[in-house]
């Protein structure tokens, strides 16, 4: 208990000490997760919207795939990406293994099903009569799709925030493909694992607090956006 309290106060000190190593870890976490989120949003939102709007026969099958993807264990994704990027793997020539690029690839694979699956559900939740309504008011096909997306925007934002929360706190995949190399691929989650193992609890707690704060901020941002509409 004593250790915990001491660790906690040291953690607070650390956070405000502008320790460069600490901020490097935070910055790398945000960069990896931010880029992964950007890519999976850029692909996942249109794909989810298209699936939600279309009547294709294969949709049931694709939905099952996406929902399975939403539950993928990150460590399995990490293993898969590791094999793909390892020297003898099909994409080994890129030399991405144990670099942030590999971590980004792994996080995209984890986030994409979340973004597209939840976007699809949000789009399907929009009143089908709305499409007829906007078409009747003179919407082109593109304007009609835009209107549906706008109606579904709360759900789409929730999808992106859920994906952010999922990948920023994920440890299995980034550990495997990034290797937790100090100053190179060490992010918040992998640093927590390391510091806990080596008994540096105050650092681990500081990192944990920061991770929680980031997830909290993302949700506050989402609630504010939802409140606006």
């Amino acid at each position, binding site marked *: 208990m004593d250790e915990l309290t001491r660790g906690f106060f040291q953690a607070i000190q650390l956070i405000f000490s502008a320790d460069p190593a600490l901020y490097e870890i935070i910055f790398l976490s945000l960069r990896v997760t931010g880029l992964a989120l950007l890519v999976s949003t850029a692909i996942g939102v249109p794909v989810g919207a298209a699936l939600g709007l279309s009547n294709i026969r294969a949709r049931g099958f694709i939905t099952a795939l996406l929902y399975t993807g939403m539950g993928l264990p990150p460590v399995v994704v990490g293993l898969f990406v590791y094999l793909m990027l390892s020297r003898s793997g099909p994409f080994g020539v890129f030399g991405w293994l144990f670099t942030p690029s590999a971590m980004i690839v792994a996080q995209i694979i984890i986030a994409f099903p979340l973004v597209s699956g939840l976007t699809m559900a949000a789009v399907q939740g929009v009143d089908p*009569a709305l499409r007829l*309504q906007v078409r*009747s*008011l*003179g919407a082109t096909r593109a304007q009609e799709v835009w209107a549906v997306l706008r*109606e579904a925007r709360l759900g789409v934002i929730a999808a992106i925030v859920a994906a952010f929360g999922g990948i920023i706190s994920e440890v299995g995949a980034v550990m495997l493909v990034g290797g937790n190399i100090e100053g190179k691929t060490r992010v918040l989650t992998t640093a927590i694992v390391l510091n806990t193992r080596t008994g540096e609890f105050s650092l681990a707690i500081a990192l944990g607090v920061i991770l929680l704060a980031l997830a909290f901020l993302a949700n506050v941002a989402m609630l504010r956006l939802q409140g606006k*509409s």
Partner: protein
Amino acid sequence: MSAPIYRVENLRKEYERRVVVDVEQLEIYAGEIFAVVGPSGAGKSTLLRLLNFLETPTYGQIVYRDRVLDGHIPIETRRQVTTVFQRPVLLRAGVRDNVAYGLGLRGQRADGRVDEIIAQVGLQALTYASAHKLSGGEMQRVALARALVIEPRVLLLDEPTANLDPYNVGLIEEIVREQNRARGTTIVLVTHNVFQAKRLAPRVGLMLNGRVIEVGNTQQFFDAPHDPRTAAFVRGEMVY
């Protein structure tokens, strides 16, 4: 009587092989108010969706302004016709944004016209209210206002006063009349209410099981119907 704006011939719409609309012949004239009455499930709303080019006919076609429409319908044509639906669907936005929506689609600015029409339907106090917090009757008036603001050539009204109190029914009927008189808008009005049809429309048609049973000028239609089924419907004795 002016030229027909719609000529419908052998128009059929089926859902899963069930015939819902089957109109042998129907003409709607430019600048008229034409009422469609008929029991629930007769196919009135489906007919309006066809006239608004929102559904593809299973068979037959619609001639609109002397052009046969089948397959792709150009957006300029589609934008001449709009519907106030039986169950209005408003966008998740304020009243004013909802009313201005059709202008935005056409790349036009939401200017004084929007506020003028909001006032006309008696909703100025709610201009900036959230559309999802409105009552049924208020929603219906927003739906009418947003149809009027785009100045359609044809206005299709599906039970536009179903949720309104007598004062607002009178208000809406006067707006409809004025729209027709001042702008020459062609209006097709679907209504359960035979008295409303009498008040607004010089010509009335009865729909039954997807078919147009009888079309006539209002006085003859109500006072001396040719078809016994029309007589039964008008007297409120129709069994359905």
